[in-house]
């Protein structure tokens, strides 16, 4: 593929750039412990912690979560654990 001048592309290039692979630690939500306060989704800098409209539970989009740990740090009931990624 030829490179475009100025790296200009059709929108949605991040659909193929799944930056979640850069992560070292992975947040795991303990759904039983979660009280559904939404703090993680409000504070996640990547918009990767979200409320799943189907299950009504909070979840993580691992395609883009960068593993910063803000959600785990801020969760008021400590329902999120950061676990080392194993490749």
């Amino acid at each position: 593929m030829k490179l475009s001048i100025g790296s200009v592309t059709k929108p949605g290039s991040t659909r193929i750039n799944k930056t979640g692979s850069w992560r070292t630690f992975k947040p795991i939500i303990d759904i039983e412990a979660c009280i559904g306060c939404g703090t993680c989704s409000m504070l996640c800098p990547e918009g990767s912690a979200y409320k799943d409209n189907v299950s009504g539970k909070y979840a993580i989009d691992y395609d883009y979560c960068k593993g910063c740990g803000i959600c785990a740090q801020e969760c008021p009931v400590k329902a999120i654990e950061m676990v080392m990624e194993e490749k």
Partner: protein
Amino acid sequence: MEIMEGSRAVAEAVKACRPNVIAAYPITPQTHIVEEISRMVADGELVSEYVRVESEHSAMSVCVGASATGARTYTATTSQGMALMHEVLFNAAGLRLPIVMTAANRSLSAPINIWNDHQDMISERDSGWIQLYSEDAQEASDMIIQAYKIAEDHDILLPVMIGMDGFILTHVHEPVELCSQEKVDDFLPLYDPIQYLTTENPLSFGTIVYPNTYTEFRYMIHEAMKKAERKIVDVASEFQDKFGRYYGGLIDTYEADDADLLILAMGSVIGTAKDAVDELRSEGKKVGIVKVRCYRPFPAEAIVESTKDAKAIAVLDKNISLGYEGALYTDVKSALYGKNGPLAMGFVLGLGGRDINKKTIKNIVAKADKAIKSGIFEAETEFVDLDLEVL
């Protein structure tokens, strides 16, 4: 021909180029340029979107956004304002947006100083912007028109900054000939972007690239810079054909043909040097000047060619790369490396608006003379008129 302030001469040239968007934040000594353009827009003389931003970072960001939609854009700044633009300057070049900017060259803080030197532009040397320096108000004005033609060429697509010495050129009143609108329209076609943003056809600019292609993107910019060397020379000739004024291509020379000693410098100091050279020539001294008009892309070949018959060159820098030497001096020496060229001496002068007069130039010539005769320099880089008493 009309007597006018340098800043107005620039504003009039900007108007003649019909930019669609202007975004600027006022800062001394750039203020008169953008004040005048703002007045033109307010009075309906120039139909353009003038965005009054809250900082230079935003001024450049507005230009980037507007340019990405295919608009012709202009801004002006100096000193701390340019430093505040720093990261956006790299983006403008990387996104290949042909923005044109005037830099009313001024020193950088601290300590605060509002007067002229070239530290602001020199500090943005590696941003990917084409850098041109002008000698007088007429050149600073005419270069705006040339700059759009260079920047918007599909082989180039790079932003251009034009240096004009703060106060020395921005605030001086000189005879200036303005270009007629009709001729500018004829010389400068409308900007024809190769890709641009619209609401119907959204695009992402500067999307992430990985280590396997980043080098190639940098190489593309570098190649465009190299092509700009030719383009700058061609546009200067086209401008001469159309308007009858010529300032040289990448460099210009003055009394250089048989000169034993050549002075290399950029900007308004060239005018002073020309007067000094005239007087030295009448005393039989073989002194000449190489005016470096374009600093990036760096005209290495032209400098080697123009200095090959001289015995020595004196490089004048209104900037200092602290811990080493003047930036032009470094680049000139690098160009001359392995070329068996003349002896090269570096002089740092005119910092923070310190006056450079004919005597300053003559003292430099005398020092160089001495070095030619003895074959040794007293110091590699000299701070001209350095006052050790106050230290």
